[in-house]
Each structure stands twice: as C-alpha cells, then as structure tokens.
C-alpha cells in the first residue's frame, strides 16, 4: 500500500522538480534568449525558415498570428484526409490494413490535428505505418501549434503597449525543434531500451504457453509513445494505449510516461513567470492548478485503493483495491494517478480502463476534463485558465471598488464578451452533445442499442464522457461506448474542432486587445493578482462556472451510480 502511494508521490515531486528548470528553458526559447541547444538547433531552424519563406524577425498582430495558425491547420487537415482514406495502397503497409471510411477519417484527422487523439479505430488494425507516422507528425505539430498560440499570449501579457506579438511560425518551429523534439528523443530512447518496438517490419509471431501461434503487431511505436505523452496528445500506437505492454512495459516507464504527461503543461506556467518577469504570479497559478489537481487525484486514489463497493457487498475481499480494468504491474494507485493526470491535462492516453474506474474516480476524470485547465493541454491549458483569470479579475476588481485591470490593462465590455463566450462554449458543447445523444437513445433504445454496453446511469456517463473528452481535446474514452458510427464520428469531430480552435482564438484575441491598451501603472489601490486571496477567487470562479454547470449531468451519471452502489 505505502509503496504504491510513495510511487505516486515521487512521480509528482519529480515532475515538479523537472518542470521548474524546463519552464525557465521554454521561457528563454520564447524570449529569444541564449540556450545551450542553440548551436545545434539554430541551423535547423534556419533551414525551416528558408524552406517556408518565413522572415523570423517580422512580428505579427494577434489577428495575423491567428490566421497563420488556422491556415496551417487547414493544410494539415487536407493532407491527413488524403492519406488516411488512401493508405491501403500507399507504401509502408506491411500488415495490409484498410483505408478509413470518410467519417472515420474525418474524425481521426480532426482528432489528431486538434491535439485530441480520440481514437475510434485500433492502431494495430486500423492504420498503416504511413498512417501512424503521419499521425505522429500531427502529434508534434498540433502540440507545437498550441504552445505557439500560448507564446503569443505570453508575449501579449508582457507588452506594455504594442500590437506586435511575435511571429507565430517562429514560436511554432521553436516549440517543435527546441522543446518537443529533444525531449521526445530522450524518452523514445529510454522506452526502446525497455522493450518498446521501433521497426518498419510487419507483425511478429510467437507461440504461447498454450501452444497457440500469436500474431503480435509492432511498428515505429517508441517514437510515437514519446510524443503522445510529452505533447499531451494521448493517441496510442496500439488500441489499448499505455496499458499495452509494448507501449508501457514496466513501472519505471509508467512513471516516466506519467511524468511526461504533465511535464510541459506545468513547465509552461513557469515559462510564463520567466517571460513576464512575475515569478510570484506563476507560482500563484501553479498553486491554484495544483490544489485543484490534488482535490481530484487524492479522492480518486483513495476510491481505487479502497475497492468497489459492489464487490465488497458480495463479501469478497479486495486486498489490492479495485483491480477491474487495471494492469497488475501498475496497481490501483498508479492507475488512478494516471487517470487523473491524463484527464486534467488534455492528454487522454490511458494505462487502465477508465470505464472500469469506481464511479467517483470516473466522475473526477470527467471533472478534470470539464475544467480543462488544471495544468491542461500543452499551451492550451494556460489559455483556458487565462479566461478564468479574466473573469476572476473582473469580479474581484469590482469587489475592491476599482474598474478591473489585469497586468495594468483595463478589462472592459469587449474582453468580457469574448471571455463569456469561451467560458460558455465548453458546457455548451458537452451538454448539448450529450443531450442530443440521450434524446436519440431515449426515443428509440432498440435502434441505438449498439451504442451502450451498459444502459442506465453508467451508459449515460459513457456518452457524457465521450463528449467531454472531445470538447476538452482529451481523447480518452469510457470504452463501453460503441463509438465508430457516423453519428459519433461526425458529432465528436465537430465538437473537437470547436473545442480546439475557439478556446485558442478567444484568449489570443483578448490578450491581443489588452496588449494594445494603455498601460496603467500599479498603485496601492490596484488589486494584486499574485496573492493567495486572488488564487481563492480564481478557484471559486472555476468551481462555479466550470464544475457546477455539470452538476445535474453528473448527478444523473456517476453520482447516481455511486449512490446506487452504496
């Protein structure tokens, strides 16, 4: 027991200890300060600039930055649709896997371009190696694009009065070459030494103890596993993701992968502190996020280690805790810890079946995605948090009798309008999506029987989870849901697009508008945003807006299940 808890605590502490220097490094990268990797990477970057016709010294406005982000994503979308729908005859397909149907390709493309990595297919049989490599490419660029958007906001927060907010392409290339690639390379090599395959050969065979001949899928997996974790992508090489022994061979790789899941999301906060030269502010944000995270993770670990109430009522002893859907090599604590880290960030890789978590753990995983800003996805996690900061600043500014201002900029109607729309978007997408699915199912349960393996409140939870995961760009699933149907492919695809790009556009727009405003120097009457009082304020805003809106839905899903089991 204690060893399990020690493992989890150690994982978290190591993560934070690594994130602090990494954050400094990322801060230096975006500020253009010298780093020790410069001599190696400068020439590579120059190559990209030259090939792309990019003038790295030309700064862009927030609108230009957004256009760049959207255009580059459109190109990726088209490229991906083309490859996924034609991969059966394209090269690098030793296992002769088929091409995707249009709706599945749409879902998969959006899923990877939007950094969601929701997978309505299984890696072993659903895509060729070329497809996997393409998806791996998206895992880099979608993470890089999110980080670049965040860098634009950082720059905007730093500016006293300017509409020049850096160059999206430069931030994007730097994010990929200086942050994602080097870390991924290290992780991939470690995985390789622990047994994760990295090959272009087709399936391997072995004869099991029973004497059966078993085909084992393999491929260029180590590289993909590394970036899926470090870029909060989560799209596994194999169907069962990091529960698969080849993706996540042992407890050490599990710790390492779990560290990678929240490493950059935490580091981005410290990068912010470095860039805008407000370390206290960064620590305040880290504090809010960490408290939120702990409030989700501690009860989850407790619930999983305690075991299921339903089994307990049958009179069975659960010495190991709730082991349904978990890997023996990880155990309930590490699985629950992973389950929450992967959902609070927009990662979505799994090392256990989330469907099989005890009801409350399932709910905390959903809450992590509903809030989507306790660390959050690389770059985008802070962007979501930024919206909550704006709303908290507005309300608390009023509470101290001063027109609200954030980092010396007055927050007025236009910014509030954007913030309100973005804050509203997430509940809208999740609740409306789930409502449509519930409506269809309730009208005709027999026609849609294939959707739900578990009817009742758990089935409701599965549908709620799917839309939550899509809207939060998480990508994990309550896998009881039969989700490879046109309805789920298209509905989730649309939710993912909106859940990805609008929450990027909103904060960048707010930050851009604020950057152009007149700078008001701080006075004794100005509300300090780096205090514990303000931290409580943000936390309250997040709790009331992001968590309470889902209370009725959660009551019908996991809460009803939980109280039903008691």
């Amino acid at each position, binding site marked *: 027991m204690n060893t399990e808890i020690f493992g989890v605590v150690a994982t978290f502490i190591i993560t934070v200890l690594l994130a602090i220097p990494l954050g400094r490094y990322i801060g230096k990268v975006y500020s253009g300060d010298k780093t020790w990797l410069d001599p190696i990477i400068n020439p590579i970057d120059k190559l990209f600039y030259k090939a792309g016709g990019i003038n790295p010294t030309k700064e862009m406005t927030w609108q230009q930055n957004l256009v760049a982000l959207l255009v580059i994503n459109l190109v990726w979308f088209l490229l991906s649709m083309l490859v996924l729908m034609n991969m059966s005859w394209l090269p690098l397909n030793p296992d002769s896997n088929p091409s995707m149907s249009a709706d599945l390709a749409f879902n998969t493309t959006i899923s990877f371009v939007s950094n969601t990595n929701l997978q309505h297919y299984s890696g072993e049989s659903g895509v060729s190696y070329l497809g996997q490599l393409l998806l791996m490419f998206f895992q880099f660029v979608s993470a890089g694009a999110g980080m670049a958007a965040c860098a634009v906001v950082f720059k905007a927060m730093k500016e006293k009065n300017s509409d020049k907010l850096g160059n999206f392409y430069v931030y994007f290339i730097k994010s990929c070459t200086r942050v994602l690639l080097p870390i991924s390379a290290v992780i991939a090599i470690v995985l390789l030494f622990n047994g994760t395959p990295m090959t272009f050969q087709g399936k391997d065979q072995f004869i099991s103890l029973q004497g059966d001949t078993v085909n084992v899928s393999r491929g260029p997996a180590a590289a993909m596993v590394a970036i899926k974790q470090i870029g909060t992508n989560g799209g596994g090489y194999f169907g069962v993701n990091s529960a698969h022994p080849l993706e996540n061979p042992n407890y050490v790789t599990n710790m390492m992968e779990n560290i990678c899941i929240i490493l950059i999301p935490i580091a981005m906060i410290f990068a912010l502190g470095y860039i805008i030269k407000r370390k206290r502010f960064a620590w305040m944000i880290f504090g809010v996020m960490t408290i939120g995270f702990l409030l989700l993770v501690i009860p989850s670990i407790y619930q999983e280690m305690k075991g299921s109430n339903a089994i307990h009522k049958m009179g069975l002893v659960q010495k190991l805790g709730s082991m349904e859907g978990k890997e023996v090599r990880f155990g309930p604590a590490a699985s629950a810890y992973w389950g929450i880290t992967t959902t609070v960030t927009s990662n979505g890789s799994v090392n256990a079946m989330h469907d099989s978590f005890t009801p409350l753990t399932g709910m905390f995983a959903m809450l992590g995605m509903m809030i989507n800003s306790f660390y959050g996805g690389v770059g985008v996690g802070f962007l979501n948090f930024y919206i909550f900061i704006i709303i908290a600043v507005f309300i*608390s500014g009023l509470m101290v009798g*001063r027109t609200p201002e954030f980092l010396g900029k007055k927050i007025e*109607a236009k910014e509030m309008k954007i913030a309100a729309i973005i804050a509203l978007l997430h509940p809208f997408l999740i609740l409306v999506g789930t409502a449509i699915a519930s409506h269809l199912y309730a009208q005709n349960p027999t026609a849609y029987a294939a959707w739900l393996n578990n009817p009742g409140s758990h089935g409701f939870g599965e549908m709620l989870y799917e839309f939550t995961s899509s809207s939060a760009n998480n990508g994990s699933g309550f896998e009881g849901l039969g989700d490879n149907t046109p309805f789920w492919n298209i509905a989730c695809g649309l939710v993912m697009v909106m859940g990805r790009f609008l929450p990027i556009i909103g904060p960048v727009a707010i930050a851009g508008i604020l950057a152009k405003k007149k700078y008001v120097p701080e006075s004794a009457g100005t509300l300090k945003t780096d205090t514990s009082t303000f931290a409580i304020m943000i936390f309250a805003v997040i709790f009331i807006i992001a968590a309470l809106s889902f209370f009725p839905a959660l009551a019908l899903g996991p809460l009803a299940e939980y109280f039903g089991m008691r």
Partner: protein
Amino acid sequence: MKLHWRRTLVQQNNIEQGNACSAAQVKAIGFKICIISALKLVSKNSASKNKIMAKNQSNKLFEPALINTALKQSFIKLNPRIMFRNPVMFTVEICTAVMLAVCIWIATGEKTQGSLLYNLIVFGVLFLTLLFANFAEAIAEARGKAQADSLRKTREETPAKWIQTVGEMYVNEVKIVPSSQLKKGDVFLCEAGDMIPMDGEIIWGIATIDESAITGESAPVIRESGGDKSSVTGGTKVLSDKIKVRVTTEPGESFLDKMIALVEGASRQKTPNEIALTILLAGFTLVFIIVCITLKPFGDYANTPITIAAFISLFVCLIPTTIGGLLSAIGIAGMDRALRANVITKSGKAVETAGDLDTLLLDKTGTITIGNRKATNFYPANGIDAAAFTEACTLSSLADETPEGKSIIELANINVNTFKTDGAKFIMFTAETRSSGIDLHGGIKIRKGAYDAIKNIVTKAGNGFPEETAERVRLISSNGGTPLVVSENNRVLGVIELQDIIKPGIQERFARLRKMGVKTVMVTGDNPLTAKFIAEKAGVDDFIAEAKPEDKMNYIKQEQQGGKLVAMMGDGTNDAPALAQADVGVAMNSGTAAAKEAGNMVDLDNDPTKLIEIVEIGKQLLMTRGTLTTFSIANDVAKYFAIVPALFITSIPALQGLNIMHLHSPESAILSAVIFNALIIPMLIPLALKGAAYKPIGASALLRRNLLIFGLGGVIEPFIGIKLLDLLVSVWF
C-alpha cells in the same frame, strides 16, 4: 426663523461697520472687510450645526411617500419593452409567463405537471421576484428624484425682476415675471431680500448671498461680477446689495434638470463597467439556459419526467437574479449618494471613474490650508518701535485688496479711522516692482514687498539691509512662511510673517487617500521652498509650485499619458481647459459658467475637499456591484443542492444521498429555493442603496474581507435560509 434672524444680524453688522468704514475714505476695501468680519461672526455660530442638519434630511431609506410611487412603478416596469434592458430579469419575466400558461393548462385538466396550488405558488413567487427587482430600481429612482426635487423646488415659480430693453433711447424697464418665463440670455435684477429665480452669471454688482438652501452652509457668501465667483444659483437668496444677473441656461436644462433625467432613466445610459457586467451576467444566464434545456433529454434518458415548474424553478434560481434585479438600483443609488453629498454629476460614468482615480489635483488654498495666508507676526528691525512698525504695516496695507493685505490689518488691530490719509497716494502692486505701499501727504513713503524687491530699493538708496532682518527672512521661509519686508523711506522697518494654516485633520484624509492608492498633488502659487514645506506638513505626495493655469493642464496630461486617471477641482474660467482635460473635473457651483460647463461634476457646497468623498462614492458603487455579483453566484451552490436531487429523487431514489440539507420533499425543496431566491432581493435593497462599506485597507485585504462576507457568506447563507424555509413549507408540501 433661524434664517431670518441671521439675515438681520448680517444687516446690522453691515450698518454698524459700514458707517465706521465710510469715514476712513477707503470705501471699497472697508466695505469688503466689514462683510468678511460680519460673515465670520455668523459662520462661527451656526455654520457647522446647520450643515449637518441639511445633510441629514431624508436619510431614511424607505419613506412612505416614496414607497407608494415605487410600488406603482414596479408594476409599470413589468412592461416587456422596459424589462428588455435587463436581460437577466427579462428571462425571469418570460419564465413567469410560461408558469402562468402552465397554471391555465393544469386548470383545464392536465395531470402530469403537479397540483395547481403548487404551480400557482411557483408562478406567484416568480411574479414577486419580478416585482421585487422592479421595486429596487423604482425606490432608487424615487429617492434620487426626491433629493433632486427638494433642490429644485426652491427655484420654481419665483417672481423675477426681468430687465427689459424698451428701446435704444430709453432706459431699461424692470418687469416682474414668473421665473419660468426667463430664457437663456435674459437679464434680471436682484436686490436685498430677493430670491434668485434662475441660475446665472452676475454681470454687474456685488452682493452677499445666502446659499444655505442649496449647500446647507449657513454662512453667507460674496458673489461679484467678473472673476471667478460670478455664478449664482436659483433658489438662493440675496442678503445685501444689488446685482444684475444674466441667465445661463434654458429652462429645464440646468445641471439639476439633467441629473433628474439621468436618475429617472429617461437619459440614463449604461456605463462601460455596467455593460461589461451585464455581458458577464448574460453569459451566466446562457450557461444556465443550456444546463436547464439539456436536462430534458437527460431526464428522458433516465426515465425521469421533470415538470415544467421544476425546470423553471431551477433556471430562475441559478441565473444571477439577485444582482440582475439590483444592478440598475445600484447605479442610480451611486448618483443619488453623490447628490446627497451635494455633488451634481452629469453622467453615471463620472461617478464610476471617480472610484478609479489615481491622482488628485488640489488647490492649496481652501483645500489644504484654511483660506489664504495670514499675517501671524510682526518682527520690527533692531531699534524700530514695535507700535510704529505695526502702524506702518497697516498703512502699507490699506489699499491692499489681497487676503494677505487684509490679514495684516486684522492682525494689527488698529482702528483705521484714526489715520490721516488725506492726499495720500496708494501704490499698487505690479509685477515689476513686486511691492506696494502708500505715499503719505507728508512725504513718507512706505513700501511692503518681497525680500529681494525691498532689498533692491534699500540698497539702491545706499542703505544697508539689517543682518538680523535678513536672518529673520530666511527663518520664516524655511518654516513654510512667507516674509514681507516693510520699508519707510528706503529704510528697513521689519518683516511681516505670513503663514499658511493647514486644515486640522487634513493629514489623516491624505493618509486615507494614500491607502486607497490615490496620489495627491498640491497646486500653489507659492515658491518651491514654501510649497515643499506645506506639502510635507500636510502630507501630500507631490506639489506644483508657482503654478500657472497651464501648469495644471500639463501636469494632468503628463499623468494621463502615464495611464493614470486624474481629477481636479476648479472654479475659474482659466481652469476650464484643465477641468475638461481631467477625467473627473469638479467645478464649484460658485465658479464661472465656463468652468461648470467644462467639468463633469458640480459641487454645490464649493468644498474643495469634496473630491475625497467623491472617490469613496465611486469606489462604493463598483464594490456594491462586485459584492452582490459574488453573492448572487455563490448562492447557486446551495440552490443546486436543493433542486437537483429534487428533480430526480422520485425515479432514482439513490440520489437521496445528494439531498444534504435533508429537505422534506421535492416540492418543498423547489418552493423553498425559489422563495429564498425571491426574498433575498428585497433583503439586499438597503445594501444596494447604501452601498457596500468601503474601507481603505488595501486591495488585497479588501478582497479577502469581501470574499469572506459575500463569497463564503453567499455560499453558506442560502443553505440555512432554504433549510428554514423548507421547515415552514413542508407543513403543506
């Protein structure tokens, strides 16, 4: 009665002293000095008491007369076209209409929606919620209007002596007309005892005026043509002498009229901050619309029929009705509080901006120091007789109209009538000589002036400047005083010390401002050394010494370029550009029309320290909005826990575990929540009208305090309130 007594006193004083003065052949000065000393006599007696009385008028929150109008208004405001301005309450109105339809539906035989009584109660409570919100706005309007009316009442329909130009050849004719017939540009005459019929500007004459009807300040004031004290206000009374006044505003367009229109809502525009908050509240409302509408398919999935009443109750409880219902009342109450402080604001925005001010420009004279500099000491040079020196000082100041000059005569306390000034020649102050004085008939030349000016005269004549006098001059300067050297026939007689007297308690006020984050800047014509001394003594943060009108303007612009909001107070025409430039420009009511036009507030009291009050009113306005928003949203936690279990408990009994308040039944839970939601609005009306208390304890401490009271309180209170209501309601449901 009191007023009458005072007037007689002033007149008597005038007569006595006036007679005495006339003998002294310095009529013009003598007259003024007489008035001033007379005024002092009066003001010392009763000014402060009267002022308090005036301010306390109608300070009760709910007066029966106002409640009647407000009640009527709350029904009139149910008009959807009026409600539409407030998105939150507008949605409540729609919900109320839907509930009415549901009640009719049930009355015609529908069975699935629960009992008719239950639905009728929900409808009734929602209707009350609307009325409460409307009442809050209406009572705020009524109070503001009553306050403005009481100011306006005095000036309605008073007879005016209109000066009519009969023809070019003939003299003007004075005709008595009702004040309402006067138009902008007309000229009227006012004599002792007359009520001034309209706002205007004196174009001829000088008079003492009793402004107590407007300001509550009983001490009469002097108003004269030309210069910065030429404005008169309708409703005030001329106590002595005769003035001709030109009307400056069209009837119905005075500042007060404009303010009443603002309060009544006819021309009330939402301030930027109010708009931003409305957007946020609309955002919350939309979220909860989504939450409630999607609940229908969720309920279908779980085979849980949810009644329309339950849906609507959940929705109305979740949306921020508390702040939505009180929002406009808070804004109106802000303007009303300004008016109670005798400040007329030209827009709601000005009050809001006042809360944000970073820098206050304050004139030294009257704000930081009492009145003007006063002579405090005579220091005769060695070998000069003290009495002779005092006499020389008095002689040199006989024609000196400046307050300083008058204070010298006061300090000397010699009967000026004993002087033989026949044939004497008064030498006026000029910028070149920087001295003034008198050439007596007998050839004696007395001069009084700045140290270097007199030194120049003395040394030119070949006389030395006594060392001990020079030392005394230095000493006075370094103590913040102003030395005036007096010479007789080019020989130094001694020094007069002029001192500024800093208002008692002003240091504390500046300390309070500093805690609020407001920087104070003293504007003075003094030399930098004196200015610095007074600035330090009074505790202001910065000063502008030897200030010219354009210096104020430049300072304001410079601060604004640094992103700061600046306020200033002024009365003169040359203050007008700076008043217009400042973010909050407060013009004194006694000031020129140009100054009043340029500023965005008019202070009826002419009290330079009023800016401090205005800042607090602005802060209170914003704080009241913020705290009630927080309270409103924090309430949702308890309401969720009351209503959500109630919705599902019949079909999913396990959810009883969520009913942490142990409410009696679904119906009683829902009713308790909506009743609480409705009752909280009238309970908070006093807070909305009075404003949340502002304490200058620093922003973070203030946030902590308000978060605790309104945030944590807002979470806990409804749990208690709903539970108590449930105990009551459960008797029937």
